[in-house]
């Protein structure tokens, strides 16, 4: 299924193992403006649990997260 949202930035997290996907995502989100979105693409299945938990604690909004074959795609919106 194609993502309906067009993200402002794409972040390639493929091949990275926990905790690096969350570390890199949080660094990238820091550089965004409030309201901007970022799509992360990872191969570590751990992100399916870690990204939602990170979004809750960091207060950013997780717009979608899904498995596409061997990849995990998620879109995060930076909140103010």
């Amino acid at each position, binding site marked *: 299924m194609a993502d309906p949202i067009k993200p402002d930035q794409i972040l390639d997290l493929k*091949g*990275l*193992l*926990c*905790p*690096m996907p*969350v*570390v*890199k995502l*949080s*660094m990238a989100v820091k550089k965004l403006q409030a309201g901007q979105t970022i799509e992360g693409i990872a191969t*570590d*299945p*751990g*992100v*399916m*649990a*870690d990204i*939602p*938990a*990170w979004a*809750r*604690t*960091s207060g950013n909004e997780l717009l979608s997260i899904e498995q596409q074959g061997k990849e995990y795609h998620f879109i995060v919106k930076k909140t103010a």
Partner: protein
Amino acid sequence: MADNTAVSKALQVLERQLNRPLMAALQVCARCGVCAEACHYYVADGELEHVPAYRAEELRKVYRRKHDFFGKHLPNWVNAQDLDEATLEKMAEMAFSECTLCRRCTFNCPMGVDTPLMMRALRAMATASGKAPEILEMLADAAIEKGKDPAMFRDLFVAQVAEMEKELQALVGDPNARITVEREGARVLYVALAGAHTILPPAAIFWAAKEDWTLSIYEAANYGVFLGDTARAKTIASRIIDEAKALKVQEVIVAECGHACASLVWDAPIWFQEQFPFRVRSLVEVMAEYVQQGRLPLDPSANPEAITYHDSCNLARTSGIYREPRVILNAVTTNLREMTPNGLENYCCGGGGGLVALPEYDDKRMKAGKPKVDQIRKTGAEIVVAACENCRLQLGDLNAHYSMNVQITALADLVVKAMRLPKSVAVPLPNAAAVAVGE
């Protein structure tokens, strides 16, 4: 009026942490300098500030100002110093980026001075005063969040494990091979790390050993430990402890990860003031036991490459697990080449203490890892095995940074490769930490 400045918060934590071992560490040092060569940071660049005793002195100055007679009244005489915010920030950076808590200095100190204990106290002071690295706090808080609401990810996790179960069946050639999740009454609860690479190889080994095991929904890593934050570390550990109690397992087996094992085996019983109704061991100890009991069908000729083993500080020095990896390696490889020194005396890889997760200190981490690179190169090994995820991440980064051209792998991967499986299905070499992380 309550004083809520960062400095006063840090000092309050120091006072709270002052137990006998910490006071002994703060009061004793012969200034002999023996610890200098023990520390990989000093070995890497020979800078005075990287002598463990020099680091400790930074905290001792503050301690003396409060607790030493001369320090209180004639601070200049005894080099005692009030803590100010700039000094606190400097010390926080030192504790998080220039000490991996590897304990090699303590092992080599004629007086047994526990410098890493002081660095842990500093980390706790920094965390309480808002001076700790944000990323470590974020990782710890995300783990706590997962524990509050396991329903948020449990179904997804179970679905992922079902996929892995199919891979396991193909790998071992047995359509009945299972990976159950949180099965009550299993003998063993295995706690992996995030990602299939710490689930699939152990699952194959448990299958071969006919172990009665089930998988935890949590990951074994505990970032609260790196923060020196007992409250967070306890909350993270309690997810697993409560899970093990609810499932009534007899044993918790922790994935190949140094700090995760050390914190559950050594710290948790102190944090909780409790003897748990189950035993906790590292997967490394359990695999060695299987080997010694002859429960795994092994053919060491499957791993003919020149292989060296990197001892994780938390496994070897903190937990005394340095013979077991050799028991395993002697059974699954044919060309083991030890580093010098190794075992209890092994040098830290430079990635411990949570440092691999802190990109802001990548340069320092690469520099501090140079002694390890030299050690590895001298062995001529093609494969470097480590039983710790932090070490493997760091070794992967060192591999890329210094173009070492080696392969990094976990013990379980080599065991699986050496296993004679019923249907000889090709076993792909796992991707654990084969990937460079930092940029």
